[in-house]
């Protein structure tokens, strides 16, 4: 992945306890319900002993953006990739395009939802396992690339289709 200045949220699978507070914070903050399907973050437990909090990586080339036939996905001046609800009609093209399974449809509205790096969950993580970063910052914090390597090593389980 090329270096970018774009921000995204990342979590440490060795530190995350798997408590789902990030997931529930998100669905409550945005949709006023508790429900992982309404959340923009997922948490996946993979034994032995790994818990992955999973977010949009805010890719520089943002394949979700180019995939959308309705041009409903755009990048703000601050670098956040967002969904324009007025334009989104739930084609699901972004879902197929996202290499991180980080975008899906809200079951009620049928419109795409994804993490927009608001930081509400980061603030509430009781294990301090997630934080907002950029590729450069992450490299500084984790020079051996342990965290991204863990994600890469479990790619198939993490980014396969959620329903599987």
């Amino acid at each position, binding site marked *: 992945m090329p270096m970018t200045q774009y921000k995204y949220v990342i979590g440490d699978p060795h530190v995350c306890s798997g*408590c789902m507070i990030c997931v529930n914070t998100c669905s*409550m903050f945005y949709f006023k319900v508790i429900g992982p399907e309404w959340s923009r973050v997922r948490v996946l437990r993979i034994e032995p*002993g790994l818990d992955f909090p999973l977010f949009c990586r805010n890719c520089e080339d943002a394949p979700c953006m180019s995939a959308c036939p309705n041009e409903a996905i755009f990048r703000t001046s601050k670098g956040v990739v967002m969904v324009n609800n007025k334009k989104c009609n739930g084609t699901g093209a972004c879902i197929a395009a996202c290499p991180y399974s980080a975008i899906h449809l809200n*079951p009620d509205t049928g419109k795409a939802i994804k993490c927009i790096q608001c930081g509400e969950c980061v603030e*509430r993580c009781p294990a301090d396992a997630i934080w907002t970063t950029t590729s450069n910052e992450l490299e500084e914090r984790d020079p051996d690339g342990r965290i991204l390597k863990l994600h890469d090593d479990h790619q198939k389980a993490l980014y396969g289709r959620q329903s599987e």
Partner: protein
Amino acid sequence: MIKGLGGEILWVDLTEKKIEKKPVDEKILKKYLLGAGYLSKVIYDMVPPGTDPLGPENVLGIATGTLTASMFPQSSRHVVAALSPLTDVWGESHAAGFWAPELKLAGYDAMFFTGESSNPVYLNIKDDDVSLEDAQIVWGKDVFETDDILRERHGKACRTLAIGQAGENLVRMAAVMNDRDRASARAGLGAVMGAKKLKAVCVRGTGKIEVADPQNYLKHMDKFYKRMLENPFMEGRVKFGTTSLVELMQHIGRLPSYNMKQGVFEGYEQISGDRITREFLIKPRADWSCLQRCGRYTAVEKGPYKYVGGSPEFESQSSLGSRCGNDNLESVLYSHHLCNIYGMDTISVGATISWAMEAWEEGLITSEDTGGIDLEWGNHETIVKLTEMIALREGFGDLLAEGSYRAAQKIGKGSEKFVMAVKKQEIAGQEPRAQKSMGLAAVTSARGADHLYAFPVLDEAGFDDEIRERFGKKYLPEMAERLNPKYKGIMVKMCEDYMVRVESVGLCKYGTQIPPEFYYEDVALALRIHNGLEISPEELEEIGERIVNLNRLFNVRLGITRKDDNLPKRLTDDPAPIGPSAGEVVELEQMLDEYYKVRGWDVETGVPLPETLERLGLQEEAKDIGE
């Protein structure tokens, strides 16, 4: 309309293979809440005296709490209950995990299983679709294999609750497991599932939970989280879970050792939390909405005791370690892991083995009985081997699978006096001569000896402020003194009322009792913002009291009276031989008198008085016990 619920209850007739969905009975909910309370009422009504715990007439209930799957700290829990095949009285056990929240998200709050299937089955739930499936592919498999197979079949996102081979083999200390290594361990309820030929409940829920006050929900949670995170207990809880209780209990002489002959163990450092943390801990693990993450994920990397998996906690260290005189930590961890995969209660397994070890020491059990197995204290190979043999009911394990009470009845020769049990269930890891309230709590617990029914830990670690706040200044200093029997009847009564209520809303005792951060006012607030239930702290207290009384009536109906509320003679008559609590006995009768009085139960018989039952709205049930 009550918010924050799944909404429906599943009624599964295993004989007829019929599944019915009914709404939660709001009348019951308002009187008993959900969880332990709801099960208490339904099973009381459906399971009369004379029922065979392992027969088709027994009813197995599994219920979430009103706050299960909420964002309140530590709100992941469910309760399993039935007539117990171990105690022959009220049987109830609880666990945390993700299974219960998943059930809520599928739209259900509880399920009841009646009858008995002719072939092994499992219940599969995918939101609205609920079906009984042939369990041939998982019958005979352990809990972890069952989880793997069912999630391979129905989707990795499913959560499973299952029994292992122990439950299938009707081992009387079989657990109901969930999320692989979480255990509703006590009272042998896994055997009830086994008898019904119900192997597992696999759940996938993709729904949502609507709460009563969504606008202010996170604001309130932020306050709860802040309090929990700033509690001085947090740091140690995260670092050690409950494993470091070995060191703390050794320090006060409350670490059951050598079948509770004594409360100190010379090898305690070898099985300590410190050692587990340094040598075997992979990471602390949490369940749904849990901030404290006392769950451990551990591994022994090589040797005969190699494994990787969840936990242990203090109870397993003491039961499979000090209680059996065993200072080989790898074997403690491994036999604990075996209990998880076979689906057994580590407390009863370790305690039953330790009973056999003492009977061996006394020459009452010989190698003829054991088939050549050596029962010397601390023989870790024996402990590991017997754990497996109990689960599979092999050889001498078949006798131990009955629990220490029944095994001693068979062996006879005076081995009965080494049974450290109340109402046939083995006493958990609290040497009560070093903490009197725990002795009383073991005796009054409706489900046979169990530390969690009252969980009276406030006299354990200097919670004077909380005692003042919760009970009143006038009870200090005596109530806070763990060796002083005074006021322990009052304390255990109030702790029971609170704890059964905690188990009825789906919360953990960690956070509500130790550390005692959240109390009635907080739970009342949570019920308001999550469920929209307006229940005052006083009414909540009464609900707890009502549940305890109904549990008692369930047992009184089965013939339980004060004579059954009794500890093994060792603990009431023999002074603790060594350690910081040397010379102490449990002054049980004195505490019991106080307890019955404050409960409004007859002091002679231990039966609830008519006016008590009337005050709690249990007039109908009162008729069942006559005069």
